[in-house]
């Protein structure tokens, strides 16, 4: 065992020589990572960009300027800073820090996680419009948007909730950072990576040519949180700050399906029916939650395999039971290190337990969300005019130019300015 454990570490077999020629023993070089001041600069640039995005989307109301800031963010946070730190991926660090006391959260990550949430609560999703490099990457390549039918859109959107739930579960248990691992565009930002990352990135880019911001709409786990905050934001993007004259010109303007039509209150007969549907769905809610919780907890042995310690313990057990032949690198390294199998098993048991609890919570949450979405879809909405959907609008500013009232306002304004 001792021999084995020394295989990689090595032992001093030959004494270091006594040199006679005046030879100087060289030092091992240690090139340093970038200096800490860069984090401060990044945070400052980030906050300024967020502030500018809010001003551009709400006050300046100019798509051209928004695109300008978006390109800046794409180059700075994307290509220059290699796409890391990013708010979307910071979910992983936050979840790990929340559930694991050994992990220290770098302050810059906290800034990147929290600032867009606060800004969204006040000003809507200016972050998505012009600061997030992932969003920018998809936005600039969109050339021929196709409309995604509303029910399909709603169904696909649930994927993002599932993604968020699993990303938090895996990060909180210290297994892996799913969001960072499968970040579709970081390969472009680094301009470096192995081929499967390139395939993932290029396919997303190709889809983005025809489907507006597919990652943002259907997968982005950070977008899920931003959507909810944007629903109740203090200020928000309006197609025109003046009155909508219902000319319908903006109806097709939004490539993300976020311009919503006016709707009238339902006639009494239908209203009664919709009330019955809602009552039924409310009864269904706890059932969905229970079902989700049950599925989530039942999946825990499979989910737990995402954790390297559980994988190793499973492998060692299988080897000891003679179910598998030979050793893997991991089991070999474990044996060579001379650690206690019993301790490993205990650790695996506690991780599996955390997956049981976490899987159940994630399942319950997803059940409630699915049920909540069903209820929301059955509640009739009364809308007086065309407007940008509170949650779905990325504040990209495309629709402004379609509105004749807005055009008139701009002309009036420029006349005012020249006077």
């Amino acid at each position: 065992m001792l021999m084995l454990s020394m295989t990689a570490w090595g032992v001093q077999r030959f004494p270091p020589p006594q040199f006679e020629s005046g030879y100087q023993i060289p030092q091992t070089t240690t090139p340093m990572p970038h200096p800490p001041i860069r984090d401060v600069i990044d945070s400052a640039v980030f906050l300024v960009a967020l502030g500018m995005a809010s001003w551009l989307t709400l006050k300046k109301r100019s798509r051209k300027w928004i695109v300008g800031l978006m390109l800046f963010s794409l180059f700075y946070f994307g290509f220059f800073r290699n796409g890391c730190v990013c708010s979307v991926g910071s979910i992983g660090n936050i979840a790990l820090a929340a559930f694991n006391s050994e992990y220290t959260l770098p302050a810059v990550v906290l800034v990147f996680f929290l600032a867009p949430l606060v800004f969204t609560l006040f000003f809507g999703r200016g972050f998505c419009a012009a600061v997030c490099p992932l969003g920018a990457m998809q936005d600039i390549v969109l050339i021929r948007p196709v409309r995604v039918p509303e029910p399909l859109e709603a169904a696909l959107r649930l994927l993002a909730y599932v993604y968020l739930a699993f990303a938090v579960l895996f990060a909180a248990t210290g297994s892996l950072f799913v969001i960072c691992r499968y970040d579709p565009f970081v390969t472009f930002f680094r301009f470096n990576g192995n081929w499967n990352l390139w395939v993932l990135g290029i396919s997303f880019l190709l889809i983005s040519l025809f489907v507006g911001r597919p990652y943002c709409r259907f997968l982005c786990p950070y977008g899920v949180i931003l959507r909810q905050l944007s629903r109740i934001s203090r200020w928000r993007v309006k197609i025109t700050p003046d009155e909508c004259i219902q000319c319908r010109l903006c109806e097709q303007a939004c490539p993300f399906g976020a311009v919503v039509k006016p709707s009238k209150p339902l006639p009494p007969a239908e209203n009664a029916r919709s009330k019955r549907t809602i009552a039924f769905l409310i009864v269904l809610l706890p059932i969905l939650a229970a079902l989700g919780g049950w599925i989530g907890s039942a999946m825990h042995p499979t989910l737990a395999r995402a954790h390297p310690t559980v994988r190793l313990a499973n492998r060692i057990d299988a080897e000891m039971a003679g179910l598998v032949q030979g050793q893997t690198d991991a089991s070999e390294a474990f044996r060579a290190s001379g650690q206690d199998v019993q301790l490993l098993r205990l650790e695996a048991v506690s991780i599996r337990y955390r997956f049981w609890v976490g899987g159940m919570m994630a399942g319950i949450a997803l059940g409630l969300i699915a049920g909540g979405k069903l209820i929301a879809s059955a509640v009739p909405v009364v809308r007086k005019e065309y407007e940008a959907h509170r949650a779905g609008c990325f504040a990209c500013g495309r629709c402004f130019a379609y509105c004749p009232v807005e055009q008139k306002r701009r002309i009036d304004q420029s006349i005012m300015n020249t006077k």
Partner: protein
Amino acid sequence: MTQPNKPINRRDFLRDGLWGACFAGLAGTGAVLASKSSQQRFVWQIDPAKCTACGNCATFCVLQESAVKCVHAYQMCGYCDLCTGYYRPEPSALDTAAENQLCPRGAIIRTYVEDPYFQYTIDESLCNGCGKCVKGCAAFGNGSLFLQVRHDLCVNCNECAIAAACPAQAFKRVPADKPYLLKGQG
């Protein structure tokens, strides 16, 4: 429900309440997380005591050329003529011919110091961190060759892809102002 104004007001009221709750929630989350955070940055590094030189470092890095390179703790080195990190087992001659070398990249430079000693230096632009030399050196030599994440190359991924693939769980986050775990330094 018959007056059209009432529900809208109630809605606004609800929304305001929710807004306040969300704001308080964010502030609270921020405060809790801030107490767990620090100005210190962390970077990835290999604990050479755990690394088994499995070869994953060469292939799993997100960079095409791995940011992990072999480094040399010269003060531990025996400066052997027959270096088992440099030569394949049973080399035909102790020269610099490629067929005798263990390193698939020819990344180790052998230079004569004085009789009978030779210095071995890694050319990091050629090394891909495969760890063949590390294994060879550890098995029959002093173990002075080992693998380290080089921070002039590493882009410091939020989660290191090699760390996730390392069979020995040898990767850890270390403070950015002490980013190396060198051998032979206590």
